[in-house]
């Protein structure tokens, strides 16, 4: 049977962990979306230097393990005299790592709008900005929403990396509850439930959004 005292006696730990995970996820989510958009613009810009920077960024952060990205902030930066605590380094690592994937999703979305659309818009007299604003971007958004929400879901789950650098998140407190109760299965089952509390509404919201965009198209 499931031992509910694991939950009732450590309610506060779970709650603080959930709050911090939510907080870290929201910040990393906003940050990675902004950063990812900038990188995507770099990658499709006609300026070669920006393209190269964007490509290097994506290839670097998409292809090394998240743990190492987090260690870079947590253990690497102190060598340069910048000391960040586990929560901040974890959130930054998460943001940088996810932004590489988001940049790729946005780039793919924009490139997926057929070139003919741009050509048609330009030949009917629209400026480049108008073409982007009224023709290309509305179509790109629809393509981009599903992969980006997937990345957001991954981000929330990946936030468990904070547990390794004493980032005070849900996973960290889960480990502490486990150390206190020795009831591994039940402890982590509640941890999983708390993650579902965060991820299921996100998954549900993304489905709603997809449907709305599908209708408007």
């Amino acid at each position, binding site marked *: 049977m499931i031992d509910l005292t694991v939950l009732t006696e450590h309610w506060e730990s779970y709650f603080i962990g959930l709050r911090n995970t939510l907080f870290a996820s929201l910040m990393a989510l906003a940050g990675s979306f902004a950063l990812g958009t900038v990188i995507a613009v770099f990658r499709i810009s006609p300026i070669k230097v920006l393209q190269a920077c964007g490509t290097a960024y994506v290839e670097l952060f998409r292809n090394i393990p998240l743990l190492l990205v987090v260690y870079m902030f947590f253990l690497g930066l*102190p060598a340069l005299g910048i*000391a960040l605590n*586990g929560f901040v380094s974890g959130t930054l690592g998460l943001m940088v790592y996810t932004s590489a994937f988001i940049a790729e999703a946005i780039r793919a979305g924009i490139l997926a709008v057929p070139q003919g659309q741009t050509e048609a818009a330009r030949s009917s007299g629209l400026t480049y900005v108008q073409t982007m604003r009224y023709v290309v971007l509305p179509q790109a958004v629809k393509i981009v929403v599903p992969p980006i929400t997937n990345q957001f879901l991954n981000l929330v789950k990946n936030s468990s990396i904070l547990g390794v650098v*004493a980032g005070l998140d849900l996973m*960290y407190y889960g480990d*502490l509850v486990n*150390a206190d109760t*020795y009831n591994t299965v039940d402890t982590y089952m509640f941890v999983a439930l708390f993650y*579902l509390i965060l991820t299921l509404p996100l998954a549900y919201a993304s489905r709603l959004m997809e449907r709305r965009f599908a209708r408007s198209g």
Partner: protein
Amino acid sequence: MKTRGRVIGLMLAVMLVLAGCGAANNANDSKGGGTNNSAEPGAGGNQAENPGSKDEGVVADIKARGKLVAGVKFDTKLFGLKDPGSGEVEGFDVDIAKAIAKKLLGDESKLELKEVTSKTRIPMLNNGEIDLIIATMTITEDRKKEVDFSDVYFKAGQSILVKKGSSIRSIDDVTKDSKVLGVKGATSIKNIEEKVPGLKVQQYENYQEAFTALRAGKGDVLTTDNSILYGMMKQDNNYEVVGSTFTDEPYGIAIKKDEAGLVKLVNETLEEMKASGEYDKIYEQWIGEKPADE
């Protein structure tokens, strides 16, 4: 409404699956125990069929398998440390494990060492992955509810490690605003949080990570048993153990519950080691001084 119902249904389904997994594991465990342990209490029928064997439970398993599986630390200098060059795990705990293997199987090389951490060792013992834990493990009342312990095989005490030149000279200088580092699942966390009310210790996966964090400037103090801290001091002499110990940490060898046979054998091994002087020898070899008393 329909969708919300679906969401709740999904969550329930997940819970059921998880609960099912737990139950399945338990079933496997007890089944495994029943077939391997010819004389587990409760498996009375099997016992009658196998009257010649006087070994019971885990002891019989170990002898059948011809190998003792001990859980030791791989990251703790002086007690259990994996030498990255040779791949050998060495230390005080490892030597104790060898002596037990020799006692049980007549050969100290019939020993498999598995890495455990403070966090993983009890689950690994209870699911049968390891036969015993020899991993700088303090005997506590709470842990006695989960596992059985041998007699004390090492007397340690909690202390603190700081960077040389730190203003913290003993536990009395630690305040609730000090940045203290430790390891998840270790008794030292509770001890220091009780001693310094309001203190929140930053907890890492293992001692190597905690020490790395200390060296990266993530905290002022690392706390655990002095025995482990001395090992870190040897690793990097910019750090020192300060003040005297403020707790007693009697180390015991943990064994699954209801395995009196193995507990008895382990205690006999320890007594024999002490009588023959082998215990003093390995103690001096690793710790660098003679055991305090006994």
